[in-house]
């Protein structure tokens, strides 16, 4: 039976690989693969491996530091395993895909074989993690093979521990031990251990004085003495055994410390395999939840992925007649409202006003305060422009899997395009104006030397930002229509080196298009600013110059919306499978 499970695993892996190679026939995947390959070469080979220079065969760390690394690693393992007993609350659920549940659960396969299947599958994930971690840790010297095997032992043992603890948690629940009782028990035990270590340290080690605390070496020295004697020595011992192979400086040492680590691994394996816990029901539920979550995330609907959706009130009443794009704005704002409800915005605005009115009225006027406020607001706006269009995806990136539905609507392409991008634009504008409101408030309450200029810039930004938001959102939306399989939208997102390359190409393209689009706007701003500066103060010239730039960007955005509409009209829902 296990051979059949191996077959399933191997064939799935092989077919996935073959599919990826086959799609390299398409130029966009080929270019993506080349760029992705170059990136990986640069990142892993040049950066992580030091440009092909041979790394020293022996570790550069001293034996004292090696002990500290071992203790640190053991402590980290201890904490991770402790958390595995404290945080989770669900019954044991091995995560299977829905297809695996449908085929394997009704099949005459023993529970133990299902666990084996799960373990085999987790090995693939562990293998890639080991590869990445080894590439990373190799920078610090040492034998890569030893590092790789060491990482494998650590990750595999952790994996088994998570599984074993989930089985034990379920057994405890079956025997009437609730989650909170278990947590209290585990935390009580951990507390007792910590107390014993503390008492021992108090009685056996000299107390740290303030000079010691300021000195990092003294702290390390104290930590080493604390963890290598007394109760901590015994508490951390099994964890140190697991870490030791990874830190072995040479092959001989590696083999000498391998046996105890393997023994711990084996004990974990036996614990998992001989736990007779019914995980099937919870697994079925988990697989459904997983499928829903993955579908939601890949459709760009992060809200649905996090929690069960609730019906939300619309942001405004939608009349049955009127401009058509408003319908899409109305619809998408309800989607956005799963996180950003109007109440949230009102509350945020109220907080800002309260802070300004009551919180800062007694603050001493400071010459530098206005500059600080301006820097903070500028940083916030910068991040909103940079990250906002990536995070707010309730536009074509969310609706493209329903492109066939949108296509049946009696709407022109530009109307659909405009309607689709309006919701994220609205949210971005709301956030940016709120930020500007807060910054302006601060400037008015705490005026400084540059206040007039900063206020003028804020006014200019308030005019310019909305059209800039439209422009910024047009780019990823155009990209998703041009290269639907490059952007995460549907149920099977692109992965692999070629997908990494595609994302890089996309990011660079986005940057380039934005820069090109901003050149005429910058020219308009500069021209109007210097012209008006002849007659007006700089602070007075800024808003007008910003208005001129906004008009240029608005014209570009208008053309962009028309173009996006044409792209949508030409988008063939069946020719390019949405990924």
């Amino acid at each position: 039976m296990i051979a059949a499970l191996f077959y399933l695993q191997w064939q799935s892996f092989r077919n996935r690989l073959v599919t990826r190679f086959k799609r390299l026939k398409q130029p966009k995947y080929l270019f993506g693969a080349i760029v992705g390959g170059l990136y990986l070469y640069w990142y892993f080979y040049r950066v992580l491996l030091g440009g092909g220079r041979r790394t020293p065969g022996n570790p550069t760390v001293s034996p004292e530091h090696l002990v500290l690394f071992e203790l640190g690693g053991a402590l980290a393992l201890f904490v991770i395993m402790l958390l595995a007993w404290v945080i989770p609350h669900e019954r044991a659920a091995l995560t299977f895909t829905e297809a695996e549940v449908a085929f394997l659960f009704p099949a005459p396969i023993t529970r133990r074989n299902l666990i084996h299947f799960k373990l085999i599958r987790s090995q693939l994930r562990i293998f890639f993690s080991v590869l990445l971690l080894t590439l990373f840790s190799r920078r610090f010297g040492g034998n890569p093979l030893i590092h790789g095997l060491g990482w494998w032992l650590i990750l595999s043992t952790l994996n088994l521990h998570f599984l074993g603890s989930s089985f034990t948690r379920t057994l405890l629940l079956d025997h009437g031990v609730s989650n909170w009782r278990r947590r209290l028990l585990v935390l009580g035990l951990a507390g007792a251990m910590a107390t014993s270590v503390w008492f021992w340290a108090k009685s056996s080690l000299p107390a740290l004085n303030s000079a010691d605390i300021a000195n990092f070496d003294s702290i390390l020295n104290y930590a080493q003495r604390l963890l290598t004697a007394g109760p901590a020595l015994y508490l951390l011992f099994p964890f140190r055994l697991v870490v030791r192979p990874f830190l072995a400086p040479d092959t001989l040492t590696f083999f000498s410390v391998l046996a105890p680590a393997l023994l711990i691994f084996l004990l974990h394996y036996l614990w998992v395999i001989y736990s007779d816990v019914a995980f099937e029901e919870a697994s079925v539920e988990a697989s459904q939840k997983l499928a829903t979550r993955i579908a939601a995330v890949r459709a760009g609907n992060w809200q649905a992925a996090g929690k069960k959706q609730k019906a939300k009130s619309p942001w405004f009443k939608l009349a049955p007649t009127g401009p058509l794009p408003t319908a899409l704005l109305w619809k998408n704002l309800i989607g956005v409202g799963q996180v950003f409800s109007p109440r949230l915005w009102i509350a945020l605005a109220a907080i800002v006003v309260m802070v300004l009115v009551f919180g800062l009225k007694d603050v001493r006027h400071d010459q530098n305060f206005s500059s600080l406020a301006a820097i903070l607001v500028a940083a916030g706006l910068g991040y909103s422009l940079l990250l906002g269009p990536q995070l707010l995806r309730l536009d074509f990136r969310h609706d493209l899997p329903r492109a066939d539905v949108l296509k049946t609507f009696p709407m022109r392409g530009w109307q659909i395009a405009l309607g689709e991008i309006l919701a994220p634009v609205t949210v971005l504008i709301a956030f940016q104006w709120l930020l500007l409101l807060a910054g302006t408030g601060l400037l008015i309450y705490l005026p400084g030397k540059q206040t007039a200029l900063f206020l003028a810039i804020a006014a200019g930004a308030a005019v310019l930002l909305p059209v800039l938001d439209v422009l910024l959102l047009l780019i990823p939306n155009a990209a998703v229509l041009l290269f639907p399989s490059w952007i995460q939208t549907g149920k099977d997102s692109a992965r692999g080196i070629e997908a990494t390359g595609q994302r890089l190409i996309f990011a660079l393209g986005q940057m380039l298009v934005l820069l090109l689009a901003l050149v005429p706007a910058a020219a308009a701003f500069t021209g109007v600013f210097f012209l008006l500066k002849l007659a007006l103060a700089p602070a007075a010239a800024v808003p007008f110059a910003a208005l001129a730039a906004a008009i240029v960007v608005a014209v570009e955005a208008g053309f962009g919306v028309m173009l996006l509409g044409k792209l949508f009209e030409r988008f063939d829902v069946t020719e390019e499978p949405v990924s």
Partner: protein
Amino acid sequence: MVQVEGLTKLYGEFTAVNDLSFSIQPGEVVGLVGPNGAGKTTTLRCLAGIIPPSRGNVRVGGHDIVRDAIEAKKQLAFFTDEPRLFDYLTVWQHLNFVARIYQVADYERIGATLLEELELANKKDALPGELSRGMKQKLAIACGLLHSPKVIYFDEPLTGLDPLGIRRMKDSILKRARAGAAIILSSHLLHLVEEICTRLLILKNGRKIADGTLAEITRKFSEQSGDASLEEIFFRATSESSTSLPPPVLPLGTK
């Protein structure tokens, strides 16, 4: 009401629909049948303006689906086998949204009536995630019928419906046809086609191989063996040769 002339849809070198021509009059219910991969869904998608035809033209209510898409789309409704709903809009919000898209000023009255008819009135504030498969299908129907379409396409309309839902769906299709709507129904369920369609269009490998009333098609394909059921006609029409007919399944206990 629907005129299709030389409709062809190509995917690279693959021809999904090949030189298809037919027309449908108001009140007609045309059954679009054919084996898997015959091009039924592609045809319906071209007819609904979801995908552009590679060649040929489609006119809906006298409007070209490509050149005059807006006017053509105002006349039609397309129901897919899997209801396509927006997961964060409630039942009533779906109707509100669709009303604005189709500019249905009186949507509140029509919507309430539709929800009553479809037994969804008590689910007005529910999200699609809270509805059963059949209820989702009903909501999709309510949305599609809100603007009183003159042309309706159904792609496997009975998928996932319970017996009562099936009965209601059949009645609803016939009611719309009696009211003057031109209907195209694509289905593998031959008994459904036999029961409610006034005309049949059989496709195979993207080509039309038969077009006519059930009686006409029966005559055409049962010359050698007298009367035949639609199932037998379907097999004859779509098989490479008459010898490839699958053997009939006998009831249990029959020797």
